C-alpha cells in the first residue's frame, strides 16, 4: 500500500467535504443535542420544577448498585452522585455522533463519486482498491472524530460549570476514556467500513446510511439497559465490546475490498 497516494486521496476527500459543509449538519446537530440534553435532563429541568433527584428512590437504588463499580459515587453527596451517574450514562450518546458523522461522509464519499462519474478516471491511475477505500475511510473518520472530540470538550465544560462540584472528576476515569476514546472511534470505523462496503453496491447514499447506521442499535441497547439498571457495563465489558467491534471492523475492511468490484462499477453504473 502506497501511503503517499492514500494521503493525496485523503486530502482530496477533505477538501470536498469542506466544500460541502451541509454533509456535516446531521452530526453537528447530534453533537449539540448530546451536549445539551443531559444538562437539560439532569440540571435545568429539576431546577425549574423544584424537584430533586437526590430524593428519587429508584434512582438512588440504581446509583447504589453503580457505586460497586464506580466507587467515586459513594464519596459524593446524593445530588452530585445522581448528576455524576446520569452524566456518565449520557456519554453513550456521544458514541452515536461519530458513527452518524462517519456514515454520512462515507456514504457520500463512494456513492457521490459514482454519481459524479469520477471513479473511472481515478481507477485508471495506479491507485489500488485497498488504497482508495482506506483513504476514503480515514478521510470520513477524522472529521467525525474531531467533531466528537469537540462535542466532548463542550460537554465537559458544561458539566464543570453547571454540574455540582466534584461531578466532572467522576467522569474522568479509565472507563470513560475507553468508552469515548476507544469504543467510540472503533464503532465509528466499523460503521464507516460497513457504509463503504454497502456503498459499493447501492445507487443512493441514503441506502448505504440506513444499512450502516444499524450498528447504532447495540450501543443504544447498552445505553438503555444500563440506565434502567438491567445490567452494568463495566470496564472489562467495555474492553470486550471494543475488541469485538475492532474485529468487526477488520472483517468489514476485507468485505468492502472484496465487494468493491471495479468492473461492475465501471460497466453497470450509468
Amino acid at each position: 500500500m502506497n501511503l503517499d497516494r492514500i494521503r493525496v486521496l485523503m486530502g482530496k476527500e477533505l477538501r470536498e467535504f469542506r466544500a460541502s459543509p451541509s454533509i456535516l449538519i446531521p452530526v453537528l446537530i447530534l453533537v449539540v443535542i448530546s451536549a445539551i440534553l443531559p444538562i437539560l435532563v439532569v440540571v435545568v429541568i429539576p431546577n425549574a420544577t423544584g424537584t430533586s433527584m437526590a430524593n428519587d428512590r429508584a434512582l438512588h437504588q440504581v446509583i447504589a448498585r453503580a457505586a460497586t463499580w464506580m466507587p467515586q459515587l459513594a464519596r459524593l453527596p446524593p445530588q452530585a452522585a445522581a448528576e455524576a451517574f446520569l452524566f456518565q450514562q449520557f456519554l453513550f450518546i456521544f458514541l452515536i455522533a461519530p458513527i452518524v458523522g462517519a456514515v454520512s461522509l462515507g456514504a457520500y464519499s463512494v456513492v457521490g463519486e459514482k454519481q459524479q462519474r469520477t471513479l473511472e478516471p481515478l481507477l485508471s491511475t495506479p491507485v489500488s482498491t485497498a488504497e482508495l477505500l482506506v483513504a476514503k475511510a480515514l478521510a470520513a473518520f477524522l472529521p467525525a472524530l474531531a467533531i466528537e472530540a469537540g462535542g466532548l470538550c463542550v460537554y465537559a465544560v458544561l458539566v464543570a460549570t453547571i454540574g455540582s462540584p466534584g461531578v466532572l472528576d467522576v467522569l474522568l476515569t479509565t472507563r470513560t476514556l475507553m468508552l469515548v476514546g476507544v469504543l467510540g472511534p472503533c464503532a465509528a470505523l466499523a460503521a464507516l467500513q460497513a457504509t463503504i462496503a454497502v456503498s459499493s453496491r447501492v445507487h443512493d447514499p441514503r441506502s448505504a446510511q440506513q444499512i450502516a447506521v444499524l450498528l447504532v442499535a447495540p450501543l443504544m441497547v447498552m445505553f438503555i439497559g444500563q440506565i434502567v439498571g438491567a445490567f452494568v457495563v463495566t470496564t472489562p465489558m467495555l474492553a470486550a465490546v471494543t475488541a469485538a467491534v475492532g474485529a468487526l471492523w477488520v472483517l468489514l475492511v476485507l468485505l468492502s475490498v472484496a465487494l468493491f468490484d471495479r468492473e461492475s462499477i465501471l460497466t453497470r453504473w450509468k
Partner: protein
Amino acid sequence: MSFTVQGGEVFGLLGPNGAGKTITLRMLGGLIMPTSGSVQIDGRPFTRATAASLRARIGFLTETPGLWDQLSVEDNLLVYARLFSVQLPGVAVERALRLLELWDRRADHVALLSKGMKQKLALARSLVHNPRILLLDEPTANLDPQTSRTVRDLLHRLRGEGCAIVVSTHNLDEAERMADRVGLVSGRLIAVGEPALLRREVFGRRLRVQLLPSSRPPSDFVAVVTRAGARDVRLDGTDLSMALDAQDAGTPAIVRALVDAGAEVRAVFDDEPSLEDVYLKLLRPGAATA
C-alpha cells in the same frame, strides 16, 4: 480482436454506439480485464501484479470528464499528478493547463466551467504525468471547431514525440484527420488499416475525369472508357467516375482514349470514397470483413 499500436502512431477505433469502443479502451487501460486474451504493453501483459505499474504509463481520457466539481481546476490536476507520483506536480500541472489553454482558469471551480472546458481539462488531466501511451475516448466531444483543431494539433505533436495514441470516435471526419490507422469495431474488429488502404480494399481504385463541355454529349464517352478497361462507369454531370483494376497504369490509357474520341479533359484525379462510405459499407449486415 487483435491489433498492435506502435509508438508515434495514432490509431482510431471506429464503430457505432454500443460497438464496444469504450470497453476496448477500458481493457487497453487495464480498468477491466478481458474475459479471454490479453492486453500487453511493451510485451508485459496486464495482470493483478502489473496493473498499477502499467496504468502509470497510460493517460486515459474517459468517456465523461469525471471531474470533481467542488475542487478548482488546478486542484483536480494536482491530485492526479500526485497519484501518478510526478516529481514536480505544480510544474506538470502548469504545463498541462497551458497546453490546453486553461491556465487562466486554474483557480475556478470546475462546476463553473462549460462542457467544452471540462473536456479540455479532462484531456489535460490525461497528459499531466507525461504518458507515452494515450487512450482517448471521444477527445473532441463537446469541443468547438477551433478547439477541436487545437486538440488535433496537440495529438499530432504528441505522435511526433513518439506517443502511442488510441482514439475512440464515431466522428469519421475526425478519425480521418487524426488517425494513421483505423480499426472498425462492431462487437469485434471488422477491419483494420490505413484509411486510404481500407478505401481501396473495400471499393477498389476509382478514377474521376472532369470533362469540358464539347459537341458530343458526355454519355458518349462512357462506352469509350469502358473499351479502354474501366468498369462500373458512372456519369455525374460532365464528370466520369470509374473503377480501375490497375493501380496507376490504367490512367494514361483512359485519358488517351477520351482525347482520341474528341473529349476535352479538364482534370483527372483519384475518386476517393470517404471513410464514411467505407464504414457504412463494412458495417452493413452481411458485409465482407477483413
